[in-house]
């Protein structure tokens, strides 16, 4: 419990370090509200650091920025860790992630994963219906697997079962169209390479630009 208090202190968004004396003082004062402190910290960080792009409740308002609301906690943790270690790079996100402390990651991920994801809308019905077929059936000819295999019906995603060799497949439903397209592109070129076992790099490389557009259109308006 005491350790947790420590961490919550140093997990402040502004990222200042609290000196040893202050930490000891805090311990001596012994405020027993570590859980709450975590939650407030994450919410404050979300509001001050993340909100401008991702929305305070994790529902992004700009097409190029991903919605984080309702995304699996494990997945957010992995992505933040990857941004911090440089395994995943992005001109906007990398410098911001560099300001985060390791202790910030879990509470932020927990916060965003608990927010309700808003419904999105597709902007091209024709493309969306082609995307639905691709999502559920894949492309037999070119060897694009059906997205549903990992990302589940209607882009719900799946949580890795703990203790098993497994991965968390991110929730894609109602995600921003441009964001999905940009990630597929980045996987295809290898610019993004933090997918387990190259699954997405291999898959995206087999997709046409049109297919990327279609599947993004389908997911954006997939509903609940």
């Amino acid at each position, binding site marked *: 419990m005491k350790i947790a208090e420590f961490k919550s202190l140093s997990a402040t968004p502004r990222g200042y370090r609290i000196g040893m004396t202050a930490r000891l003082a805090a311990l001596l004062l012994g405020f027993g509200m570590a859980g709450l402190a975590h939650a407030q910290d994450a919410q404050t960080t979300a509001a001050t650091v993340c909100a401008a792009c991702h929305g305070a409740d994790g529902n992004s308002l700009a097409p190029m920025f991903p919605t984080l609301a309702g995304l699996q906690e494990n997945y957010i943790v992995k992505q933040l860790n990857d941004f911090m270690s440089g395994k995943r790079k992005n001109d906007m996100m990398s410098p911001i992630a560099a300001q985060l402390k390791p202790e910030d990651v879990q509470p932020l991920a927990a916060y965003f994963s608990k927010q309700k994801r808003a419904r999105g809308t597709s902007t091209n019905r024709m493309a969306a219906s082609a995307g639905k077929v691709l999502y559920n059936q894949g492309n037999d*000819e070119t060897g694009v*697997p*059906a997205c549903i295999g*990992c990302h589940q019906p209607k882009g719900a995603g799946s949580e890795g079962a703990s203790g098993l*060799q*497994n991965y968390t497949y991110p929730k894609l439903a109602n995600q921003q169209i441009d964001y999905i397209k940009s990630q597929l592109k980045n996987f295809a070129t290898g610019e993004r390479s933090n997918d387990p076992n190259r*699954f997405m790099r*291999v*898959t995206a490389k087999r997709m046409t630009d049109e297919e990327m557009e279609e599947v993004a259109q389908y997911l954006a308006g997939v509903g609940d």
Partner: protein
Amino acid sequence: MKKILISIVAIASIAVLPLAAQAQTSQTWNEKSAELTKVLETKGDPERGAAAFVPCQGCHRSDAMGKSSGAYPRLAGQHASVLLKQMTDIRSGLRNNPKMEEYVEDHLAKPENMADIAAYVSALPIVEDKVGRGPGTAIQAGKTLFERDCVQCHGNNGEGDAQKFYPMVAAQHYRYLLRELHYIRDGDRGNSNPDMVKVVKPYREADLEALADYMSSLPPPKK
């Protein structure tokens, strides 16, 4: 002295001949690679296998029934040894399957992943409704061919032989069977049993279709 020499030569040729005969076939078909030996010795865990199989579901589907389009075979209920042999052959490039090879380079690099997947998938039920059957117009002709040329290895009911890596062909998708028969006949599969290549070499198009029609119509054999 002469006697001894003769017997030495005799023993030597007995020892060498089978090796020489084997050398022609082993590399291309059923020689156990180091990886196959390892995965056959590894005890698979079906529960872990279910998790490791998730990335395979995009093609082989969540029930491992594959697709009736023939693009992806039914794996459910297939012998574990056959699944392991095919996985290792695709990984090594012995079986020509560029679509799958890229996906399994990393994912199946751990022997336990392969053993787990094989344990899980081989125990899955075969959903008969999902088998893509042939047109049903050449079943009798296919049966005649099957009983003449195939039963010795693939069994009377198309059940295959786990010990010898002969796949269960009953209740496999028609279009997949037809595709593989073409690959095997025309030398495009890579890891075909040369004995089978010889058998199907003279087959005409109609024969291949009849054979696939019959095999896809066979009910799942009782285990």
